[in-house]
């Protein structure tokens, strides 16, 4: 034997080795705990569904253990108990915030996070087209969602988020403002938009929603108390006035101008125009070669007007729109066809009226559209 055997004494570990070991231990510990999903408070857990097959407006329990999944439970929902009142905060009413999205704007997301309504009562729903642009927007959106829902503070996290991808191709590849607003493209474009809105609405509405807030992806600035402010009026359908900030070269300063012309009150001229049209033709607002002389809410805005002032409307836009869930449940949807010569959001207003729900507008309550 070359080397004599004997009780081998451990070599003295250097403090550096110990320190590295400790760091590793901590890392292992950290990943063991940190790898699990973010923890939620008890009240959020209580409202969660127990099975993945459940209304998407609430989060569900992820199956952690192996073993066979249990049969889904028999779930009861009493819609008589779903309140829709002027005090949604006090009655802890659930809001479904729906956004058809073609492009992702960081300002839009930041604005969402600033909403002062408790986020644990807000469910977000998105629908994006399956185009190159849509894919990019989805990636961006998912990045922001992961940031908020996984690592953000709990008060920022939303109750539940649904991302849908459209099952039809948008008729126009270009989202250019000029191309988008061409009159001959409008009917096809808005029919596709209506289908996207309906797809998003009817798959996410669920049995617990009290209010549906439609907010376009290019609305980048709203008051933080938007939901409370709109719900306070307790109207079936209510639309704020959508403006756009721009740099006024004449005044050499930032200025704002009306943007959404789909909020209007009907005029005798428009009624006459409609009578002469074919059954599938639609009347559009904001085009010079089709003067309707409708009273547009965009121009009813007064700088010194009361923010709470309401006006009844016959057509609404979708930039921002708060709707009682019951209106949608009764069947009011965004017609993707000519409905009384109206389409999409304007057709929705008409359909709501046919069902006995009167839409209203807030001419002096402003939200802002992105400027391209």
């Amino acid at each position, binding site marked *: *034997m070359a080397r*004599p055997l004997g009780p081998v004494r451990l070599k003295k570990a250097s*403090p550096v080795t110990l*320190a590295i070991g*400790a*760091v590793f231990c*901590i890392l292992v*510990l950290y990943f*063991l*705990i940190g*790898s*699990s*999903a973010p*923890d*939620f408070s008890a009240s959020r*857990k209580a409202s*969660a569904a127990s099975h*993945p*097959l*459940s*209304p*998407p407006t609430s989060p*569900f*329990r*992820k199956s*952690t253990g192996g073993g066979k999944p249990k*049969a*889904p439970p*028999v*779930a*009861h*929902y*009493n*819609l*008589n108990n779903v309140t829709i009142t002027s005090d949604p905060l006090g009655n802890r009413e659930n809001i479904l915030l729906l956004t058809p999205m073609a492009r992702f704007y960081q300002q839009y997301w930041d604005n969402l996070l600033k909403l002062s309504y408790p986020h644990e009562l807000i469910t977000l729903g998105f629908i994006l087209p399956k185009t190159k642009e849509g894919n990019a927007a989805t990636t961006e959106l*998912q990045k922001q969602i992961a940031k908020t*829902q996984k690592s953000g503070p709990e008060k920022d996290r*939303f109750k539940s*988020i*649904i*991302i*849908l*991808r*459209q*099952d039809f191709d948008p008729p126009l590849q270009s989202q250019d403002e000029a191309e988008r607003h061409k009159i001959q493209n409008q009917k096809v474009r808005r029919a596709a938009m*209506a*289908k996207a809105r*309906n*797809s998003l609405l*009817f*798959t*996410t509405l669920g*049995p617990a929603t009290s209010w549906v807030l439609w907010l376009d992806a290019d609305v980048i600035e709203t008051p933080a108390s938007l939901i409370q402010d709109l719900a306070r009026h307790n109207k079936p359908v209510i639309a704020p006035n959508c403006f756009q900030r721009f740099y006024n070269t004449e005044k050499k300063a930032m200025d704002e101008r009306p943007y959404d012309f789909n909020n209007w009150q009907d005029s005798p001229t428009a009624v006459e125009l409609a009578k002469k049209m074919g059954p599938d033709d639609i009347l559009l607002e904001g085009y010079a070669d089709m003067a309707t002389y409708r009273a547009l809410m965009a121009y009813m805005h007064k700088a010194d007007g009361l923010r709470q002032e309401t006006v009844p409307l016959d057509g609404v836009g979708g930039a921002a729109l708060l709707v009682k869930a019951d209106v*949608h*449940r*009764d*069947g009011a*949807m965004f*017609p*993707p066809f000519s409905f009384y010569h109206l389409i999409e959001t304007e057709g929705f207003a008409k359909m709501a009226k046919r069902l006995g729900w009167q839409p209203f507008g807030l001419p002096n309550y402003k939200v802002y559209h992105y400027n391209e």
Partner: protein
Amino acid sequence: MLPFTSSGSKVVPRHHVSGYSNGYPRGNTFEISPHRFTPRGTTPISRRRKRLFVRLGIVAAILFLFGLITWNGGSVLSVLSLGLLSSSDGFQLETVRYYDLSNVQGTARGWEREERILLCVPLRDAESHLGMFFSHLKNFTYPHNLIDLAFLVSDSKDRTLDVLTESLEEIQNDADENQHFGEISIIEKDFGQIVNQDVESRHGFAAQAPRRKLMARARNWLLSAALRPYHSWVYWRDVDVETAPFTILEDLMRHNKDVIVPNVWRPLPDWLGGEQPYDLNSWQESETALALADTLDEDAVIVEGYAEYATWRPHLAYLRDPYGDPDMEMEIDGVGGVSILAKARVFRYGAHFPAFSFEKHAETEGFGKMAKKMQFSVVGLPHYTIWHLYEPSVDDIKHMEQMEKERLAKEAEEKEKAEKSKKIKEEFGDATGQWEQDKTKLQNIALQAKKEKEAAEKKTEDQPAAAAQAPAQGQQKVEEKQGGAKT
């Protein structure tokens, strides 16, 4: 065996022995034995301090980490269990759902592609039909785990809700896993009842428009609460279907149409003809009806099957041939609601059951119109029939009462007749039996007489007078009897 192992009980450390392994004893040489125990001296103060710092550092790091996790909303327990037991004290929440709607378009062979169906059933005071409905449900051949059930219970005064819940829980707890359905939602919503649910008030003409609008609202509420992004198909089914093939879902799906309905008939009692078309809401549009629609005001609703609106439309129901090809399709414009299979896409895009007058139609007929307007295919199968339960109308009940009365009267009459004839028989006896008896008696007598005659012939001389007397007596008796029967 080795030399050093045999050195008695005294165990000598091996290396000491091996030190002499070359055979030569070492002298008193200088030796440093690193393996011999030497008591440790005191560690230098600098190293002790360093070690203290390291230990303090570790403790601080652990405390920091602990604090970080608990402050971030985690529980102390989850840290102590190293996150491994976190599932035991609670569960993890998933808040984000992602769905690609192009994966749920609906195809002709949905069961192979695991396409989910939403089965919608509107209910009101339907307790008595639930047993029959569940027997149909259990027999569906479409994989149960792919069927999501949604029920709307509205304005019910009977035990519909309790019976429904019990039956569903029984199915979900069934030992046979193939019986378990997917998501099950029971939705309660009262709309305030405008019309009674009994047959007469339900089918009266005046009640139709408001009733249909209300039904439409109920259907829309049910659908909007239960439709999910993962549904490929939606199947509407009434509880009061009595007979339908178990394969109905696959049968309808195979046609790969956007909206498809079977023919709906109902069996009738024999006195009413045995069977009858039931669902008259599946029809093709006619010029007459379009012209009629133009004359009506905005809120009017054309309802089919009433003399008030003669539309002259071809009805799916009347085109049935019991021996026709069940796969034959027919384009229709209005659909009936007893059994509708539609692609979920139809409802996702916005088609619904108008609770207002949509092109002068409401509910399922309006749905057919709206689906057509949105360029969906709407098809009926004239020779594929399911059977609706027969519920007698008030007239039928009256008629049946009348028939029952007649039957009873007839029975009583027959009974009376039978009794009368029995009485007659009792009073006057039965002649036929007597005849036979008499006949045999007569024959006996005749026989006896013959014998006697023969005997007498033998002794002719002895007793000629006695032989002549006997037949005469028998004849007298017969004459007496005959006289009695004649009277």
